[in-house]
């Protein structure tokens, strides 16, 4: 089956998950583990960089849905960036843009978190 990979990095105190390849029913459990690990480290501000993501199935979308409630309860969020049009269409069909914020690039997504932080301070 098609390969899937995820790289976890940290930028400005925000976890960036760079997804790569095909996120489907077969690879979703692997991604679920990665996301669980991030949350177990009490990191709730997450950017999912989808630039290299070629396909996402309903099981893949389910992974985000499975965690978002907990993350938001803890004051965090998952934000998407650099989504390829074909993949964005899948998100769009299901109505994800109503539930999640999408950014054209990683900087935008990271900046939005910084913005939130400064808003809270003021």
């Amino acid at each position, binding site marked *: 089956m098609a390969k899937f990979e995820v790289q976890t990095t940290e930028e400005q105190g925000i976890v960036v998950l760079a997804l790569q390849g095909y996120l489907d029913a077969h690879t979703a459990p692997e991604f679920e583990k990665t996301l669980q690990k991030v949350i177990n480290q009490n990191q709730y501000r997450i950017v999912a960089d989808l630039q290299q993501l070629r396909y996402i199935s*309903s099981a893949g*979308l389910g992974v985000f*849905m*499975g965690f978002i409630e907990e993350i938001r309860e803890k004051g965090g969020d998952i934000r998407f960036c650099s989504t390829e049009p074909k993949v964005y269409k899948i998100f769009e*069909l*299901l*109505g994800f843009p*109503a*539930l999640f914020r999408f950014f054209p690039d990683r900087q935008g997504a990271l900046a939005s978190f910084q913005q939130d932080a400064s808003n809270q301070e003021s």
Partner: protein
Amino acid sequence: MKRLSQHIIFVFLPLIVFVVFFIDLVFLYSQITITTLRIFREILLVGLLAGSWFFVQRYFRVEKLTIPQKLGRLTALLTLNYLVVLFLDGLLDPAYSDSFPPEYQNVAAVLFATIIGVLAPPTLIASLKILQELIFYRQKSTTRRYFQLFLLFTGLTSLSLYFTQQPLHLSFSGTSAQNTILFLITLFFMVQLSFHNDWIVYLPRKIKWLYFAIGIVLLSEIYSLFDVVYRTHLTAYSLFIASVSFMLYLFLLIYATVAILKLFIYLPTAKAFDRKIREVNSLNRLARTLNTELEPEKLIRMITRLSREVLECDSTWLEMRQEDGQGFKIVHWENLSEAQAANSPFQRHPVLVRHLYHQKQPVLIPDLHKHKDYAPLVAWKKEARSLLAVPLISNRDQLMGVLYALSHTAYAFDNEDLSLLEGFAHQAAIALENAQLVEKSIFRERIEQELKVAREVQLKLLPQQLPGLPGLEIAALSLAAYEVGGDYYDFFTYPDGALGLVIGDVSGKGTSAAFYVAEFKGVIQTLARVENDPCQLACQANRIMYPNMERKAFISAIVGRYEAENGKFSFVRAGHTPVLHWRAADHHLAVLQPPGLGIGLEAGPLFEKYIARCTVRLAPGDLLLLYTDGLTELRNQNEEEFGDQRLQEILPAVSGKSVEEAKETIFDQITEFLQRRALLDDLTLILIQKTEVSQSQEEGLLSAAVQMQNKARDNP
């Protein structure tokens, strides 16, 4: 009566002995010779011999005894002979003449000879029987023949000796020649039979030593048996019995000598031989369990135990690769502490890692104290001196685990041990792999069974019959992937009489998806009794489903409504794929994708805010296509996707055909695209076509519409 005949021997034998004893006394005191009485005496003695034979056959059952028991009986019998003689020597003072055969000189001689005469035949016949059993331990077709010939010539020689009334001289002159020739033939068979002692080879090493020691004593006992116990007494009693006894005694002597020699020869190699036997046995045992033992747990225990038994070492343990493929763990051990097992230093040791874990080579370290590299291993277990480790390699050349053996003495293992343990590990690897495969396939079978049930449930949820409506043709196609997916469609009637339809796709696969489908169907059908608006229906369905669903699960759906009287089709799209509308009038394909969230993604407020109704009016010849993403995400062998492009070409291509024909065309197109590849996901599509409505149908519709309005008025 039968019991009596069985035990008659106990009357018969003592009677013979008594009569002979009486005759002997008469001869001794009367100093006369009565030939008839002498012949009668000899006949009685033949009877005594035959009776002894019968007695031994009947009451001295050696067939069921083990070899040690047989040898024990033999020793006991011979010892009994010696004890009797010793006892009699102290009590009596027999005197015999110097002639051959010797004659009694006093009553003591008669008594002594009688007792020995009674004792000797059963002893030697019993010994013969034991020898026969030992000889037949490994029987060849000729063995039995040789034995019978030996018995025949023993009898002939004895008769010859008896009739010539001469001792055996081993000369070829005169009457002795006949005796000598017969004797030599008998001797030949004795020697021949004496080499049938294969039972010695298979004795364990310790038993070989024991038998050798006992054998030396036994041999000297046998050797002096005839000289000390039998010679004069027995010859005086009966020359025939004496000669038969002598022949049997000689056979016993020869057999014992050869056996002792063989034991002596086999002693130095006994250890190696022992190990070989145990190796073969344990490999056999393992191979047998290979077919019977399917529980990996039990196999692992067996492997460590058997390897320790065979190598006679202090500790053995088995390391197995962990399920996640990360590293090895000691799963079972013999004679290690809990802490030692939990904290093995072997995977961190550079030499072992390189040889064992990377090159999959066996490792033999004769002395751990010799090199400081091994200090960590000695630190781990301070008694450790020599170590043997062999890899368990799977069929696919993967390292499954490592079998270790450890001894507290240096140089405890040699290359033979290494190859033995290697053979052992090879068998063990096969057995373990088989067991694991079986376990996996049982698991898979259970899953498949579960899927089958789910699949059956799911199929029952799909409508068995499509609704018939004047002016509207409907066709549906649902292809099931191998695994249970979550595709679903259904038709219903709104309270106001309009046709309702729903198509949905539950995220994920497997049984949970199937049960969400069942739940969803129930919710929709219940709501459809009271709700006329597809948008309200979807919103309420979301509110009901959301709390009951796992957070990572959701349902994408389209809920539609068709009003036959005006051809209006309105629907909401809850995160589902768009609806395609082919307008026959201007040959235009509209992709209808009003905003909407999937069901179960959000509790309600956002869902209801976001969702929007879309309404189109169908004209005659218009086509609607509703589908699940299984269609657009179809993949063929070249990993090519069916995609939107092909999808949008479908409707123009089938316009003008009936929906049934259109469905067939689409199905053909799908199979052609897939070639021979299996479906990865469920695929469902619904085709709806508005047809020309005839005059009569229009009237019917009108009346239906009036009825509907009345009904709506009655139930506000």
